């Protein structure tokens, strides 16, 4: 008996989303790599879209998330000025202030996001849609990155001009590599935390809060992390923000006597590379696992748990 039955004639439209004739439901579920890729790319752009559009519709963020955080960074600049610190330290604060934009983006708009999505009733739609959860999270990252990059750029540029920070960069390529690897590992960590926060339920909100000041401290946001001794070493080996900042500080203020990196920047690049692979790999495993839990037990998508 033929499984094709009375299948409709083949559609002429070349689009992976329209009906295509198949021999069986199992065959229909078998997607070619191109179709998988296109679907996931569309997922990324689809998930990034509301974030970008939402940002452009709510103009208040320009004041609250660009202007005011610059003033917060300025407060730490004036702490160093009150202490008559060498000018490099003002540069450390400006660099740290710029990088917090990415940490906040990872924590608020990624790690806590799956939990919000559950609350809003979107999570079950994500799980039932034929797409990778990593693409959804990547879409969130791409959408939020626009805002974070703008905030970081504003803090960096205005801070540099306003406070007369002088950067001394010898290795631009390495600095850029460190920056992009820091972002990659941060967003990998964000994906891991997103799954963990989803499993922890209501604690997600509080964990996001909890992971701000302590992480800023152990990452050496405003001072060289090497000064923290063993705590700094521990941070360097686990938190991408700590290792990325330490490497960027050494590369952006080359030759300064105050940078005191915990490790040479070349080694820190390798650490970041390992972190990226580990976090992204772990995120993949965890996302698969929560997807399975959601499908088998149906509890992950229940609101109010």
């Amino acid at each position: 008996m033929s499984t094709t039955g009375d299948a409709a004639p083949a559609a002429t439209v070349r689009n992976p989303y329209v009906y295509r004739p198949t021999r069986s439901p199992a065959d229909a579920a078998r997607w070619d790599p191109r179709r998988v890729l296109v679907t996931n790319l569309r997922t990324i752009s689809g998930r990034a879209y509301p974030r970008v559009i939402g940002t452009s519709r709510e103009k208040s963020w320009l004041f609250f998330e660009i202007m005011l955080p610059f003033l917060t960074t300025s407060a730490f600049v004036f702490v160093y000025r009150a202490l008559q610190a060498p000018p490099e330290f003002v540069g450390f604060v400006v660099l740290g202030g710029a990088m917090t934009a990415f940490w906040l983006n990872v924590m608020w708009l990624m790690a806590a996001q799956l939990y919000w999505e559950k609350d809003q009733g979107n999570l079950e739609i994500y799980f039932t849609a034929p797409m990778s959860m990593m693409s959804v999270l990547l879409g969130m990252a791409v959408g939020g990155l626009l805002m974070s990059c703008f905030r970081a750029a504003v803090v960096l540029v205005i801070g540099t001009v306003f406070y007369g920070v002088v950067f001394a960069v010898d290795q631009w390529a390495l600095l850029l590599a460190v920056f992009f690897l820091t972002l990659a590992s941060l967003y990998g960590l964000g994906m891991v935390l997103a799954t963990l926060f989803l499993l922890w339920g209501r604690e997600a909100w509080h964990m996001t809060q909890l992971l701000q000041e302590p992480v800023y401290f152990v990452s050496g946001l405003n001072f060289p992390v090497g000064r923290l001794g063993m705590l700094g070493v521990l941070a360097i080996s686990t938190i991408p923000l700590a290792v990325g900042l330490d490497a960027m500080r050494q590369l952006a203020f080359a030759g300064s006597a105050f940078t005191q990196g915990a490790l040479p920047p070349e080694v820190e690049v390798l650490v970041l590379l390992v972190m990226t692979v580990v976090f992204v790999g772990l995120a993949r495993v965890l996302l698969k696992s929560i997807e399975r839990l959601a499908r088998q037990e149906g509890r992950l998508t229940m609101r109010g748990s």
Partner: protein
Amino acid sequence: MTALTEAGPSWTRSADPHLGRRGELRQAWRAFRTAARLGWQTEANWADPLLFFIYSVAKPVFGALILVFMLEVISGGRADQAFRAFVVIGSALWSFVMGGIAGLAMSVLEDRERYRMLKYLYVSPNDLLVLLLGRGVARVVIGGFGAVVTLALGIIFLGVEFDVARVDWLLLVLAMGLGLVAILAMGLIMASVTMQTRQDAWQYPEAVAGALFLVVGAVFPLSVLPTIAQAAGLVTPLTWWLEAVRRALFPDIVSAIGGPGSLFAQLTGRSVPGGGESLLVLLATTAVVTLAAVATYRWSERRAKERGLFDLITGS
């Protein structure tokens, strides 16, 4: 009928539109207490006491540690004790500000976006303002808890010298009372702002508190700031609150407002403000901020009602 009314459940009386002044006050007090209790439970019942303790103190303690470490790095471990005490006290007290400013705004966002109760609260017989204040107070209490622990750690581990016999209790109580009113008023302004914005305003209260951190002399004297920033600081109640509380707890501490080259010294010809003077200015600035907060809130409430923002669910 009279017997029935008297024997009826309390909500029957609370919904009575013909309540007298005392009845209204009683109802408002009941609503405030319920909201404060709810706020406390929302904040506290998600974790066991140990985790909640860590959560409550982590932010202020690590905030203080960042600043103390900056101080130690620059001084090479030989930081001026007076300045270290100044930094620890300022960052400990800041915990109240973070809790107060964020508390009311977060209540609006959580009740609207997450629990989706804001519209029901709004149409209930209680004034939403009273309910928000109740929710905000719970966070201020948690902030106060963080402040006390940070201060205690500063005294025990960071060498902040504290003599309980030298505390000016009257100044402390009056300054704390007025300061908390000012903080809640600022929180109300933030709540009015978040009533108009979408869900992603979670970070707005923290951004505002961070910006205020620059101009109020929390962790460095105002005299290092440009004149215009010093002027902004002098008209902010938090500056005078911090000054008065610092002076009440540690009479010999460095002044954040006065000192050589400060705008205060230029305007008044005196080096540092006295405790009574700080209280008076705190009272005046708190009155202005409170009136502004109530006006802003009423405007925001009216606009939210007109535009249907009380049941707005957003996401991005």
